[in-house]
Every structure is written in structure tokens, then in C-alpha cells.
């Protein structure tokens, strides 16, 4: 799999100059779309992703409604221009699988039982993909849910760890994901200490996997701090606006 491209240089740095346990620069913003009940935007390295939440609202088609809890639906979708070679807009098998695992990553955090017979719809649009989009998509969707005021047990935050050129690394970018030896995306609920998304592809020994899992969880904890700041920033901005109006 690997070979042609050197992913770790003689100083132990990665293709984009990061140390093995370093995250890419992350920027998050909450409340970016006016029509949605909740929304958020994330830039993680060159990956740029928008998420919107609609609901709790009436379920369409109605027969899908659940008598004892809200129906959670999630659509992860990549824009045709988000990747090198144009991606046809119809959902691919990969996107359908990712929609499912992201939904299942967020589900344990939401008090769905508070909203029977309604639906909560999450839409994740990848505007530019540069690796780690399922993780960044999960992180940003959790923010959009919180922004929609949906009661949650915890935020959900996701990050991948993996192995490139024999070195365990955090938060893989596209080249590292494609040319590396393994990729372990993890979603984590930091206050509950629970893993709600876990996948792996590549080859790892049990020990390497354990280290990768820990590394990914540490990465999640770092992103979690940024996630909380992003949420607070929205309300600080509103507070300032109100205060200037009152003056």
C-alpha cells in the first residue's frame, strides 16, 4: 500500500509538518445558517464541513414515526466539487454507510425519548474533503444538535488515529489516510467516557490498536475543548450585541 510517498520525514514530522500526535488547525462556528433549527461549520485542515439540524419536527413520511421516541435521521453527503475527481451527487455506498455510523455515533447522546412521534434530521454537507470527514462531520453535527437546543447527555466529538510509515499518528489527512497502513476513526462522549463510533481499516497489532484508540480519545478530548468554546462564542456574540443595543 505505502511505498512511493514518504509520509514521515527524517525529523519525524508528517507531510504537512505536524508531529505525530498533533491535530490539524481546527476552526468551528455555531449558528451559521438562518433557516435551520441548529447549524455549525467546521474547518479541520483543508476539510470544510457544514451541518444543519431540523427538528424535533413532524415526521415525513408519517408511518416512520416512533411511538416512544424521536426518529433520528442523518445524511452525510459530499459535494461534487469536494474532491479531486468530481463525485457524482447521488449518495454512494460509502456515504450511506457513513450516514449510518454517524447517526449511531450521535444517537446515544440525545434524549430521543423526550420527543415521541417527531423526527430530528441531521444534514452534513462536506464542501471540501481532505481526510477525516466522518469524524469532523460527527463533531460538527453534535454542535448543530446543541445549537438546535436538543437536550443531550453529552457532546459527541470524533477524531481518527492511524499508522503511517510505521508511526502512530493523530488526525490523518487525505494522503495519510490513502497511503498509510491503518485508520481508526473514533467518536467519544468525554463526560460519559463512552465510545460511540469505532471503525478500523488497515492492519494493526492488538498493541498498536490499543495505542491508536488511546491516541484518538486524547485527540477527541482536545477537540472537545474547542467545541465547547465554539458553542459559548455564539452566545457571547449575542450578549455583546444585546449590550450594545441597550447602551
Amino acid at each position, binding site marked *: 500500500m505505502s511505498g512511493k510517498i514518504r509520509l514521515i520525514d527524517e525529523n519525524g514530522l508528517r507531510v504537512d509538518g505536524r508531529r505525530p500526535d498533533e491535530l490539524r488547525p481546527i476552526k468551528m462556528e455555531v449558528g451559521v445558517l438562518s433557516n435551520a433549527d441548529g447549524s455549525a461549520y467546521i474547518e479541520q485542515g483543508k476539510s470544510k464541513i457544514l451541518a444543519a439540524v431540523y427538528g424535533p419536527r413532524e415526521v415525513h413520511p408519517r408511518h416512520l414515526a416512533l411511538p416512544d421516541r424521536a426518529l433520528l435521521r442523518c445524511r452525510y453527503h459530499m459535494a461534487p466539487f469536494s474532491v479531486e475527481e468530481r463525485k457524482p451527487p447521488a449518495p454512494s*455506498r*460509502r456515504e*450511506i*454507510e457513513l*450516514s*449510518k*455510523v454517524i447517526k*449511531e455515533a450521535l*444517537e*446515544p447522546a440525545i434524549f430521543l425519548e423526550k420527543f415521541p412521534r417527531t423526527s430530528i434530521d441531521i444534514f452534513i454537507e462536506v464542501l471540501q474533503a481532505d481526510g477525516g470527514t466522518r469524524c469532523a462531520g460527527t463533531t460538527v453535527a453534535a454542535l448543530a444538535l446543541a445549537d438546535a437546543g436538543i437536550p443531550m447527555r453529552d457532546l459527541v466529538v470524533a477524531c481518527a488515529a492511524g499508522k503511517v510509515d510505521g508511526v502512530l499518528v493523530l488526525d490523518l489527512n487525505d494522503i495519510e489516510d490513502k497511503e498509510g497502513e491503518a485508520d*481508526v476513526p473514533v467518536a467519544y*462522549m468525554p463526560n*460519559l*467516557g*463512552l*465510545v*460511540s*463510533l*469505532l*471503525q*478500523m*481499516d*488497515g*492492519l*494493526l*497489532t*492488538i498493541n498498536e*490498536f*490499543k495505542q491508536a*484508540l*488511546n491516541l484518538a*480519545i486524547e485527540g477527541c478530548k482536545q477537540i472537545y475543548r474547542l467545541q465547547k468554546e465554539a458553542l459559548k462564542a455564539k452566545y457571547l456574540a449575542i450578549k455583546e450585541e444585546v449590550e450594545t443595543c441597550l447602551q
Partner: protein
Amino acid sequence: MSSIMISRIRQRQISQMITSGKRLDGRGLIDYRPIKIETGIIEKAEGSARVLLGKTEVVVGVKVEIGEPFSDRPNEGVLTVNSEFVPLASPEFEAGPPSEESIELARVVDRGIRESQAIELEKLCLIPGKKVYVIFVDIYVLNHDGNLIDASALASLAALLNTKLPIYVVENGEVKRTSEYMPLPMRNYPVAVTFANISDKLVVDPWLEEEGVMNARLTITFDKDGKICAIQKGGEGALTPQQIIEAVYIAREKAEELRRMVVKA
């Protein structure tokens, strides 16, 4: 996840028994149901296998065609894994476009085979960039009684090991089929082991009713050298990191047991 109806009392019975280390069907928490593997059951397919995992029944057929390689891997054959939840297998299955579950199943099985580099795809190139062997693995679920992933992964491996590849030759830039066959070149044997999380305990090989009670599912695929080649968590619940690590060790042992059965079959 799977939306079969199970009465509350039955749900409670299943989870209470698991809490005390027992299961409704008499198995231990990390026991598989009886497994039966048959190969070569479909003569028209280049490879085939049927796996019975308790009452779960899966048939896998391997078909081989000549096609174009992926542009980023011009010197390699192509592997395609697909699954069909045919409506005769369960009252929950409907005809029509593949469900999320069916796509996930095929992709998890695919990941195990691909990431362990089980098939020597680089030996399946005829004209670089133009003509390669395309290996279609079609998973057909015939009876759904839980744990379709392990049954499908096992049946896929058995069918691949049973596959006779028709030999093609290149003459004047044209690909021609000969009457000769050779075994599909294989270098690894990935095996998937699936757990259900019920009452915060992990049980191996959940059957249908246990899947109805579980809050999370975890599949770990091991290659023949004891390395992990694929993982997939499913279901609306979550797991602790300790549970995951515990599962990894159990899965390695179980995968070894299952692998011996397939390689023998």
C-alpha cells in the same frame, strides 16, 4: 437496529440471564452457535459456499469476469462485494434498493478481505490499465436469525478459497479465455467476530432476539497473523474503551477457531 418485535418480558429475560452469565439458548457468553460450512454448492459460480450459523443461513457466490482496473491501481484485479437481503429471508426484508444494513454488511466484509490483502490482486492483471480479473463476491442472506456479518464473512472466505479462476491469456493485445482453471491466489484468511452489548456485557455471535435487545454491536476482523484488519461498531449505544479492548482479545481467539473450520472445509 433490527426492528423485530420482542415483548418486554422476553427482553428482560434475555438481559437478566446475560447479567448472570447465561443465555436463553443455553450458550456461554462467548460461544458461537453450531457452524456448518459447505463449499462448491453452486456449480455455475466460480466459487461458492453456504454457511449455517445456528439458524442463520448465508450463501455466497463468486463470479469472475474480465473488466477494467481502477485508475489508481492499474496493475491490480478488482474486488467487488455486494449483499442482498432477499425478502424470503425475513419478514423484515423488502425487495427494492439495498438497505443501509445491507450496504454496511457488504462493506464490512469487503474491508476485511481488502485490508488483509487476502486476494493477491496484483496477480490478477492481464493488460495493465486495461484488462484485469474482476472478482464479484455476492452475499445472499437466505435466513436471518442474527449475526449476518460473521456468517457472511465466513461464507465469503470459504467461497473465495473454493474459487476456480478461469485462466485467460493475452494474444495480440486481446484477452482470450482458455479451458484451464487455477485456484484463486489467496495469501490471507480474514475472519470476523461480532459482539452484542447487552446489560453492559459483551456476548459473541448474537442471535436475532439478542440483536433486538442489544444497544451496540462490535465487529472485529482478524487476519491469519493475529492482526486486526477491520473494526465496525454499530447500533445506537456506546461502549467503554475497556469493553473494546476486552473484545479484541476474545475476538482473536474466536477468529482462530473459526478460521480452522473454514480452511478445513
